[in-house]
């Protein structure tokens, strides 16, 4: 249980993280000490005063007023300290500096979309510059989600119809995990993402590159990866939640209601935009209808990508 954050807290990678950690360890260790006192006393008494003679009747003892008072006063002082401390850090955690770089975040079942000030939209992989406060302005398209980056010690619920926000300032380059921590349906545990912390220059270069044109199949592969299609669709022929994408192109599809169709551009477009329209036989109607925001370019990319999966 070292202070270096290996057993309890993960390594502190944002400016506020270490403040949260000091508080955490303060509470942890004071609690541990009081707990140890209680348990030691209990074990000692259980051994020392164990019943030796079935007929023994101990005399009542006088309660120690001092002990009782101390036991009330000391914890009260401790909790008041912890309260003020916790409150201060809480306010800091929730008040982004005015010069923060703002990224708009949309949570959907079950992926995250990030929109940069220049209009670039990416999914599940958020690139941010190091050493600069970043503010996320978040909202949801459907149900509650919650945006959590453990390494930065930040979390906030993402609500439909209301903006909430959080902010952080990363202290070292690297990749950090994003979780969704409010239950949101089947793939709640698949609603993951990454924060990629880069130097100013790298970040600027990445942002620039995002707005450039990629070849459609490559763009499609990116979309497929970023939007986590792979959670439900394999590209190597194995069956997961949904049908595999391998060999899908041009194949004849059997539907639950008995209908059939050939998997062409329109079919794939429809499958993605309105998955409930035709349910592939033997599969559940489990694909979320949340991909409506994919642009025409991205859809073309996906189609091109699926074409490559012979």
């Amino acid at each position, binding site marked *: 249980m070292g202070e270096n954050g290996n057993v309890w807290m993960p390594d502190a990678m944002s400016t506020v993280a270490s403040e949260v950690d000091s508080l955490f360890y303060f509470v942890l260790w004071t609690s541990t000490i009081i707990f140890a006192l209680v348990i030691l006393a209990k074990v000692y008494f259980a051994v020392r005063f164990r019943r030796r003679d079935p007929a023994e009747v101990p005399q009542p003892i006088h309660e120690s007023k001092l002990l009782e008072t101390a036991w009330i006063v000391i914890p009260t002082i401790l909790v008041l300290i912890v309260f003020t401390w916790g409150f201060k850090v809480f*306010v800091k955690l*929730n*008040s*982004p500096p005015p010069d923060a770089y*703002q990224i*708009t975040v949309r949570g959907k079942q079950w992926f995250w979309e990030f929109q940069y000030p220049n209009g670039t939209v990416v999914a599940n992989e958020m690139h941010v510059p190091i050493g600069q406060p970043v503010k996320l*302005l978040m*909202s949801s398209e459907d149900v509650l989600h919650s945006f959590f980056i453990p390494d930065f010690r930040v979390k*906030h619920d993402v609500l439909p*119809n*209301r*903006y*909430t*926000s*959080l902010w952080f300032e990363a202290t070292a380059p690297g990749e950090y995990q994003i979780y969704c921590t409010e239950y949101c349906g089947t793939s709640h545990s698949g609603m993951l993402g990454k924060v990629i912390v880069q130097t100013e220059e790298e970040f600027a270069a990445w942002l620039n590159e995002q707005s450039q044109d990629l070849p459609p199949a490559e763009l499609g592969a990116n979309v497929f990866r970023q939007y986590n299609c792979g959670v439900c669709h394999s590209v190597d022929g194995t069956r997961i939640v949904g049908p595999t994408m391998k060999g899908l192109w041009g194949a004849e599809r059997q539907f639950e209601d008995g209908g059939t169709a050939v998997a062409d551009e329109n079919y794939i477009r429809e499958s993605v935009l309105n998955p409930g329209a035709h349910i592939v036989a033997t599969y559940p109607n489990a694909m979320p209808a949340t991909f409506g925001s994919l642009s025409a370019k991205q859809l073309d990319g996906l189609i091109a990508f699926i074409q490559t999966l012979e």
Partner: protein
Amino acid sequence: MSAHGHHITPARTLVMVFAGLVFLTILTVVTSRMETGPLHVPLAIAIASFKAILVVLFFMALKYDNKVNALILSVGTLFVIVFLGITLLDTMYRGDLPNTQKGTIMDQQRAEEALKAEDPGAEAVRINRPENP
């Protein structure tokens, strides 16, 4: 309390309480139709509370009843106040730290549309959108 000592509320008291209740009903209607400014809501609630107290004390005979029952009622009422009061602490102060927006997104959009409708020329008017505070 005597042997079968239930208190008997005299008919006269009951009639007077009833008359009082009718009077207060009329009063609340009348005052609510007058211009009472900031007193508008509190007055109506005060009158209603007073009526409720009359019913409790006389029709329900709590005035003459076991004190425990009065305690039960007070505790119940107290917790309604706790529920209401602390919930309002949230809903009234929503957005006191910048991590939550006070209004909903729908409201903001409506306000924006209203602005545009008023002044179609000002395409760029964007009120209080979080993107550009």
